[in-house]
């Protein structure tokens, strides 16, 4: 059985434009901060079952503010 590699997510709040697309794609991993509406990373190392949703969040982010390694 092959192991799913770990995923490490990083967000750039300076680049974030508050579109909320990441929250729509992966609400368990991303949120928007109540005071400024910019991205908040809830799970920097999301479990494998959320990897596809995170990749979709990366794809949908209009500002390119989310990166993943692994």
């Amino acid at each position, binding site marked *: 059985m092959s192991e799913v590699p770990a995923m490490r997510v990083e967000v750039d709040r300076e680049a974030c*434009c*508050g579109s909320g697309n990441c929250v729509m*794609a992966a609400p368990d991993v991303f949120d928007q901060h109540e005071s*400024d*509406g910019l991205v908040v990373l809830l799970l920097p190392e999301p479990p494998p079952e959320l990897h596809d949703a995170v990749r979709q969040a990366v794809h*949908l982010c*209009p500002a*390119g503010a989310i990166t993943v390694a692994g």
Partner: protein
Amino acid sequence: MSDTLAPTHRFPFVQPNGDPLVPVPSPGSERVARITLPTGREAWLVSHHDDVRQLLRSPDFSSDFSHPLFPLLREAPLLDESRRAGFFIGMDAPDHTMFRRFLTPEFMIKAMRRLEPLIRETVVESIESMRAAGSPADLVEWFALPVPSMIICHLLGVPYSDHAFFQQRSRTLLNRKSSMPELRAAGDELRGYLADLVAVKQRDGGTDDLLGRLAVERVATGEITAQELVGISVLLLVAGHETTANMIGLGTLVLLRHPDQLAQLRERPELIDGAVEELLRYLTIVRTGLPRLAVADTEIGGQVIRAGEGAIALLSAANRDPEAFARPDEFDLHRAAHSHMAFGFGVHQCIGQPLARSELRIAFAELTTRLPGLALAGDQTDLVFRDSTVFGVERLPVTW
């Protein structure tokens, strides 16, 4: 590459006698085509999904429409400083970033979820008013236009009783056939009206609405001027009701033209999220695309676009790109259409998209369940589509 003289096409393209719901394809075969704008200026037309994504996310393309080389689709009356104040859709970082940051908490998903009971109430009341007025009725007049207008008025703190005033001026601003004096008058009247309103909000020390909050939190602190707040409010008021109104009108038309899919939506309400995304993709109401000015030489789709050249990102074509969406001209609410760019892309992506999604979801859900016999009325060939920056249907006669 860019030195070879490709044929130039007049933009925007005219709809032949086909279905107006299908966007006009680019007449040329080049991936990035040379076009002539109505101002006589030439620009590049970018229409593939990947290329539009790249262009709209690239810092090498500017949104500053006050730049003398900016590829405007018409002469703009907004070029003097007082008319441009706060109009952050036409700015680059860091100015754009500052204005956008003031608004991100106001439009975030959580804030829009808190607004949903009011949206539902507004939607239901509008349906009941239309029902009381009797069938047939014009869905645009009774439902599609009033619902988003009432909601944006509530959010901004603008009296809805003034709706005839601002709706008419908004339409003039978006109508591509408006003359320069008409555009200038409509813009100045709207700005004057909102300047008075902002002055009242400043005097009253901040009402519990977006304009009231910004008046206290940003204008009183000197971060922005009252004139800039007026610019922000013009932008949000116009964009906040016309776009969603046209999506509700046209979206209803598309659903009624696909009765099998409408029936599925009625049986399985959980399909609504996907249906809304597919309607956004399929209709892409900003039909004239998004203009940008290259500030550095950049290759897009194999074409080098040089600094100082204009480019138009044609969202409607990108959303019908067969490489991004299989059978792109088919309306299919089961399609996972999330990567559409109906709201644009890049840091200028529509800040109101969570609001638009909440409104569309609730509007279509309530309309389909509360009026199970909803059907198009009259002769469909009579439908008049709007030749505007924002594509729409003038009237939509329905029965139920």
